[in-house]
């Protein structure tokens, strides 16, 4: 497995760049993963990333994009729980990019 170095510590990622150990995650690593995805993190990005981490903590899976949109709509409002808003934040797919930055595995049910 490839290793990456962030703030003087090394971490394992899989061949697609997803963090191998969920527990390794911290803000520095999120920053590094975001940089790799060419995403500039704002408060709006963090809101989605934190939402995903809470979702994973509760259900033990990374949600498919359709499920994520619906869940965000329910918690943060319809102005955020829609494809347009989420794809503007994460152009290559909110589930894939935001999950990666959140240190989660690749979403289940996302094909």
């Amino acid at each position: 497995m490839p290793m990456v170095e962030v703030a003087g510590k090394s971490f394992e990622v899989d061949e697609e760049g997803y963090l191998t150990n969920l527990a390794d995650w911290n803000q520095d690593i999120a920053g590094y993963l975001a940089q790799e995805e060419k995403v500039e993190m704002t408060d709006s990005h963090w809101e989605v990333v934190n939402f995903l981490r809470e979702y994973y903590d509760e259900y033990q899976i990374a949600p498919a994009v359709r499920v994520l949109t619906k869940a965000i709509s329910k918690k943060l409002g319809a102005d955020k729980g829609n494809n347009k808003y989420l794809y503007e934040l994460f152009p290559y797919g909110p589930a894939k990019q935001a999950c990666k930055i959140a240190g989660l595995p690749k979403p289940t049910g996302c094909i």
Partner: protein
Amino acid sequence: MSDMMEDMEGGEGVVKKFMFVNRKAPHGTIYALEGLEVVLISAAFDQDVSMVFADDGVYELIKGMNTKGIEVKDFSRTYRALDGYDIEKLYVEKASMEARGLTEDDLIVDVTVLDSAEMANLMAEQDIVISY
């Protein structure tokens, strides 16, 4: 794949009745976890999905699991995410539950409890049944 999804959403896709029959206890074998993944993926195809828990499969739904000691994921909590995936038809066979000293209150999600004859009827009306 996204093109195919759009085709299906456009009404060209056929909605079939899929039933996933869970008959294995969690953790001891990989069937329960892999089966759950299959169901989550199937949700993307907007089919009419039912999940059945019979025999040792009922054990998959027990509340209060703590998997820290055996160092595996507690995927029992993922059954609670099924609702968000629009998978709402969960059935438990009454005889299987009773043979294990369990009641509906012991289960982590809301289910419909069916007797064996009712379960047989439900199974008979499916287009596709996948059992593990």
